[in-house]
């Protein structure tokens, strides 16, 4: 079950008739000579929490950017919410809107106040009236513990606050899945906890999540399934206990040993 990529697919199929929320089928992505992602197969069920780990440069970020089309596949097919996106094609904006994303470097819109960061997409993509968008945005800010920051500029926030605003901004679109691309890697250590806490609550609320992270504690506590990547390939995947306590692949074992000794 934790052997190789096709095994990961099996986990999704075994869940029953419900189609996967996301499926990558033989997806590859090259940057010049470098194969960032090499024939990846992955299925993600609704409500599943997937954590992607692996050494830097192993293709983790590219893998999740392939899901919402920030990277366009060179080969293979991405299926998102039942819609197939062929290689060399971008998903339509309406499909991206269902797919929230949180970046390592936040990418808040610096020319807009916090509240307007949250309401921009709901107003212009979902065509929500301003009052309704703002009411919902204030609710979300309260949920991430930043009710008092609605009128602040992004530049006035700490890193942890910025990332919590970024999470709220993505949630404002009421996405069906949330992608996190190393959400705590750019944070000072004392701010990692507050961001992970928000993500943990989100997971408890039943959100489908794909998280690229080096936070093994978070992976162990929250993930339904951990995917290990190395050199562009999905090497193995499985429940966190199995992956961390009895690493099924020597490269995962070596990777875990390296990060544990680094701590």
């Amino acid at each position, binding site marked *: 079950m934790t052997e190789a990529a096709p095994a990961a697919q099996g986990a999704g199929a075994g869940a029953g008739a419900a189609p996967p929320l996301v499926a990558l089928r033989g997806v590859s992505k090259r940057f010049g000579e470098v194969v960032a992602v090499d024939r990846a197969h992955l299925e993600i069920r609704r409500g599943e929490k997937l954590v992607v780990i692996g050494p830097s440069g192993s293709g983790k970020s590219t893998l999740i950017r392939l899901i*919402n089309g*920030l990277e366009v596949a060179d080969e293979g097919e991405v299926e998102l919410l039942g819609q197939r996106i062929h290689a060399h094609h971008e998903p339509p*904006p*309406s499909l*991206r*809107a*269902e*797919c*929230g*994303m949180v*970046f390592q*470097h936040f*990418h*808040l*819109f*610096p*020319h807009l106040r916090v509240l307007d960061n949250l309401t*921009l*997409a709901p107003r*212009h*993509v979902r065509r929500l009236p301003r009052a309704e968008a703002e009411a919902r945005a204030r609710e979300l800010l309260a949920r991430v513990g930043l009710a008092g920051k609605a009128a602040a500029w992004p530049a006035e926030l700490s890193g942890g606050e910025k990332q919590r605003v970024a999470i709220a*901004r*993505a949630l404002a*679109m009421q996405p069906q899945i949330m992608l996190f691309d190393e959400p705590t890697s750019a944070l000072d250590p004392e701010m990692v906890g507050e961001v992970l806490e928000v993500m943990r609550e989100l997971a408890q609320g039943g959100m489908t999540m794909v998280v690229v992270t080096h936070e093994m504690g978070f992976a162990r506590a929250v993930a339904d399934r951990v995917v290990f990547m190395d050199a562009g390939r999905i090497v193995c995947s499985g429940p966190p206990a199995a992956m961390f306590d009895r690493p099924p692949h020597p490269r995962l074992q070596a990777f875990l040993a390296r990060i544990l000794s680094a701590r």
Partner: protein
Amino acid sequence: MRYGARSQALTGRQLAARAAVLGLVGGALWLALARMEYRWDWSVVWDYRAQFAAGLELTLLLSLGGMAIGMALGAVGCLLRVSQRDAVRFVALLYVELVRGTPLLVQLLIAYYCVAPRLGYDQPRIIGMAALGVFAGAYVAEILRAGLESIERGQTEAALALGLSRWQALRLVVGPQALRRVIPPLTGQFVSLVKDSSLLSIIAIAELTKRAELLQASSLRVFEAYLTLAALYLAITFPLSRLAARLERRFTPGD
């Protein structure tokens, strides 16, 4: 304004040094002129003031009109330049390179003597303004493009990830941020255009430079006519370039 204080206050020493430089330059000029035993007669300039005013007005009008046309052409040129299609990008590249690779004087000659007559058009002011606009547009296009490209790619990605279309991402996220950064260079471009508009004098447009030439021809007062001309250009460009420098300080630091 937030960053204004940094370079504003000069120390007493710096002020004294600047005054000394001005005194030296002024003194040298004064000596040179005194040796020529030139007899100044500024009354011709005063008698000519209405013409200078009219020339100044036309210079400003042509520069503003040219800049307006330049902004429109520049915006279009910039959008073409960042297009996904290579052929479209090439059209913009051709425009920018042709205009920036030839002197404005040559462009004016072509516009006035080659293009306008074929179109049966004999409105030198309109031709001149259009030529200034085409000229400025190429530079504005490059300024706008540099502005767009100075905004990190993550901004576009964040906008796209939220479901915005490429056009919405440009209009709502990248454009507004780029606009603040291009205001200083655009002001600088306008200052250049005001000065460059003096070339319009060769196609019989009675703007500021042409008026000074006429005064010089009729009065033979070379110094009075041309020194006044220079002072009038400075009166427009100096405040503008100070403004550009201020805006630059205000907008650049990691904003």
